[in-house]
């Protein structure tokens, strides 16, 4: 079937959300990953911002649809609409502000109440460049991540440390979860309208599909 595709080709489309307190650097993490940019004067995110990037994993093209959400309390109430259909999440805190680490428990709880239990979660300690005022130890963050069955990494969007690894780590893991589950990937463009993502619910194979169709 000849399908019109507005964007480039890809084998998989995964939706990933970025959550965490205001000011921890979610927007700069995304701009560093999607466009290799960093800004000291990032405007507050209002509602949600959206970017995509395609990466290679095991010879497959994986397109990440990343939703960067607003961190301030007021905007939290409306973030649930953005969680829908996401198969991965980066829960971000600021390594130099302890309270943002403590709040990740709340963010995780909220994430889990709106998404599939198999969602791949990466706890991200950002602003690793602020070594002199670090307020959370690696061991503590790692232990918390283990308890929450999440991965953990430290990043610096400013110095471009580990940022791509954090995103590709999540995407690769999602790919493996889907790969374990779905041996034969259907090529039915009607299975999912474009813009929807693969559901990694283990109970329903039919929902896993790739090459989301045409418009």
């Amino acid at each position, binding site marked *: 079937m000849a399908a019109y595709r507005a*964007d480039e080709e890809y084998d998989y489309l995964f939706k990933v959300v970025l959550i965490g307190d205001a000011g921890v650097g979610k927007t700069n993490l995304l701009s560093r990953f999607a466009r290799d940019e960093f800004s000291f004067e990032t405007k507050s995110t209002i509602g949600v911002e959206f970017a995509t990037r395609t990466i290679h994993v095991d010879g497959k093209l994986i397109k990440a649809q990343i939703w960067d959400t607003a961190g301030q309390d007021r905007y939290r109430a409306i973030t649930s609409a953005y969680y829908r259909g996401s198969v991965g999440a980066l829960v971000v805190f600021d390594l130099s502000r302890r309270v943002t680490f403590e709040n990740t428990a709340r963010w995780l709880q909220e994430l889990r109440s709106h998404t599939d239990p198999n969602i791949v979660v990466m706890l991200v300690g950002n602003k690793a460049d602020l070594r002199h005022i670090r307020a959370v130890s690696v061991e503590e963050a790692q232990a918390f991540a283990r308890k929450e069955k999440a991965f953990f990494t430290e990043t610096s969007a400013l110095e471009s440390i580990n940022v791509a690894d954090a995103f590709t780590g999540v995407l690769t893991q999602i790919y493996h979860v889907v790969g374990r589950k779905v041996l034969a990937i259907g090529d039915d463009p009607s299975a999912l*309208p474009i813009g929807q993502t693969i559901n990694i619910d283990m109970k329903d194979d039919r929902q896993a599909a790739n090459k989301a169709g045409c418009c």
Partner: protein
Amino acid sequence: MPGRDNEAGGLLCRREISNGDHPLCLGNGSIWNQYFKDAEIVEQIDRDEAMRNILLLFAKLNPAIGYVQGMNEVLAPLYYVFRMNQEGEDASEAEADSFECFVQLLSGSVDHFCQQLDNSSVGIHSTLLHFSELLKANDGELWRHLDASKMNPQFYAFRWITLLLTQEFELSSIMRIWDYLLSNPSGVQEVLLRVCCAMLLCVRHELVCGDFISNLKLLQHYPEVDLEHVLDVASHLKTPVSSYQPYSII
């Protein structure tokens, strides 16, 4: 406002603090308690000093709403205009004038910033629904296309509406749009929804051809367009049958 006469420019002045009150007092009566709350707001605002004063005062007068990120964007064009027009004069007048206008401007839409009202008839979801109805009445085909591709207006129009389009355009364009909003007898909020709807109609060709991803990118980074054309389209929109009346009491 309190603290203005403080030489250090901080939030507290020495003679406001009673004997025995100190930063470790946890009671609500402690002036320090209030100080830390205010400092938290100021930290979030982190802008020009006059703008910070205005937003802090607004937050203190509206404790149920407080300071919400993005309010600074709504205030900025007002403050800019007053500041530019009062060059050489006392700049504090610009502060007071823009505060007053900020309160007036937000009076019709301040509920959009209030989480507790999100699902009420004055909350942001209700406004987004009216926005969607307006589009449906004026371009059913485009509405169906966006709806079928699961393009929830919340993904793009939430920011358009709550920030009165301040993050979508350059300052000169914002001035032009706001002139249009403020000069129209239908009221700022009603006209704002019309402009937002016209913004969709002006890129309808791209939207109809686009998929979810390209459409969301387009609407979150609205392209440079002929603004007069957008406003002209907005002026000629049909009003949906269930006419939106944001100020109606019933």
